[in-house]
Each structure stands twice: as structure tokens, then as C-alpha cells.
């Protein structure tokens, strides 16, 4: 099925073909590579939920046409 992935930083959107056994990690990697971003610095949210990387598309209950958002995942605070 097709979902949309939105880049939170720029507002850009792409369509992505996903299978039920694809993981969110794979969605992040594909979208991040498309936008020349470091996949390790981002996570995906769907509405008010952060989707865990190991979750499959089937487990997320995403439907055709749903929009997920690629958001920065901050990690600093000490150095």
C-alpha cells in the first residue's frame, strides 16, 4: 500500500510503497536517504505516537493514504 512520509523540517512529502512486513526502521532509512539525511538522527511519528523502529507496518495499523512524519531525534545535552 502507499503511505506518505512528510519531512518535519522542510514540509516536503514523498509517497512510499510499503508491505505489511516492512519495519518502521526501513521507512526511516528510505525517507532519510531520499532527503540526504542521517537515518540515525530521525524517528517517525504518526499523529501523537512515536513509532518504534522494530514495529512492522502491520503492527502500526497504518492504512492506505496515511501520513507519517519524519522528525529529528535529539541526543545531545552533555558535551
Amino acid at each position, binding site marked *: 500500500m502507499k503511505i506518505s512520509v512528510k519531512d*518535519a*523540517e522542510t514540509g516536503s512529502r514523498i509517497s512510499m510503497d510499503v508491505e505489511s512486513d516492512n519495519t518502521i*526502521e526501513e521507512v*526511516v*532509512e528510505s525517507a532519510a536517504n531520499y532527503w540526504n539525511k*542521517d*537515518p*540515525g*538522527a*530521525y*524517528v517517525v*511519528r504518526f499523529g*501523537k*505516537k*512515536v513509532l*518504534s*523502529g*522494530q*514495529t512492522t507496518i502491520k503492527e502500526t495499523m497504518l492504512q492506505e493514504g496515511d501520513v507519517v512524519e519524519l*522528525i*529529528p*531525534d*535529539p*541526543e*545531545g*545535552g*552533555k*558535551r
Partner: protein
Amino acid sequence: MEQVLKAGDIDNDRYDRSKRLGWFDIEKVKKAKVLVVGAGALGNETCKDLVLSGFRNITLVDMDRIVMSNLNRCIFFSEEDARKKRYKAEVMAEKLKIIDSSVRIKAIVDKIENLPDGFIPSHDIVLGCLDNISARLHVNAHAYYGRVPYIDGATHGLIGKVQVVIPPETSCIECGMNVTHNKIRNMRYSCTGNDISFFEPKIPADINTTSIISAVQVQEALKVVHGRWSNVIKNIFYYDGNRNFSEVMELEINPACPNHGEIII
């Protein structure tokens, strides 16, 4: 005997304005044993807010020395501290007493991973002010196992987040790891058994975002010590200063996360 008021007494109470919250109990706050892991930007702001809020028993763990590039965001460090290459935790322990001389700060100059297993669970609450996934996972696992609430802060430029972990009810840090985190974890615990060094790049840091994230961490710590469970963030407070918004987001427990399985003795 008739009670006689003394005019102006209200402003002699350091915590008068805190008490006006209604639920604030200074005795609960003073008794709480707080562990702060990391004495950098977040650690500086978090400890400042903890002491101002009334916390009196603080243990601070950090292995680093002060450098000049810390000074744009670490209120307690000076140029002289940087020249002398003083340890961050030790300087903070001294400077925090300027805010309140009654505060008890134990400064430990070491990596959190080097401390004994029972160290983290010996506290009532843990605040994470770290900058790498390895230390976060270590603290997360020990806090979760010891059933100690863990409030983790993180920033990157004008973006920040606070995740509140209340074991065993909520998801934990490991439930929300991203692609790189998983790769680092898998490499670090590879079957070679060798410790692996990673290049950790410098991260953009802004004091204003740092202050916001630290403030939320301490605010959540206050809710936790008062048992205000219905008001605690569930599960992530996310702040974006570039796009001017903040939001609370949920993170479900990951069934594959090792911290949430049954403990088999």
C-alpha cells in the same frame, strides 16, 4: 493565647511561592535522593533548577573536564575552570552551594557504567543529562530494573525532548531506539567481547533550548516525588524551537524490549 502575626513574615520563607502551588510539600522534596547523570549543559541547568526547587540530596556523576567551548551553555563554569581543566562534577558541587548552602551534593568523577549495580536503584529518581545512547541505555536498564523513575533529557540545536519513564507501567528509552542506536547497541555487545570506540561528533547546542528541556525535567521530577502520576508526561515532551511548537507524544511499550519481560529468578 492569641496568635500574633508578624508583618512581612511571608517573604522570609524561601519556598512561599512554591507552596502556593497547593500540592507542593517541601519536606518530600528535601528528602528525595536524586541522581543526575551528566554535568554538561543539561546537567548545569537541571541541577540549578533542582536546588532552587528545594531538592537537597543530589548525586552528580560525570567524568569530563571543563573546556572553553562549554561556557556558552554551562552557567556554573568559568574561564578559570577551563584553564585549570577542572572536573565538571566537582565544580558544580561547589557552585551549587552558593544557591543554597544546605544542599548536599555528592560529586562522582567517573563513567556511570563503572559504578556498582546497586548504585542507580539506591536513588528515588534519576535525571539523565547525557549525550550518547550507550550511557542512556545503561541508566535506563538499571533504573527500570530497580523500579526507579527515570527522566531523560536530550537536545540538538533548537530541538529537544524529555522522556519520562515510570517503571513498570510505561515504555522506556530502549522502546524508542532509532536505527543508529540499534546498530551501536548491536556492535557494542558483539560476540568479539571487545569494547568498541565510536566517533561521537560535536552536537549543536543552544542554552535556551537546554533551559527549556531541563526545566521540564525538573518539573516532572517534582510531580514524581509528590506522586502526581496523572499529571506526569506520557511519554515524551517534544520541543521544536525552529518551528515554534511543543507537543506530548506517546511511545508504546515495545514487546521486543528486554526491559519489559518477566523477571525470572
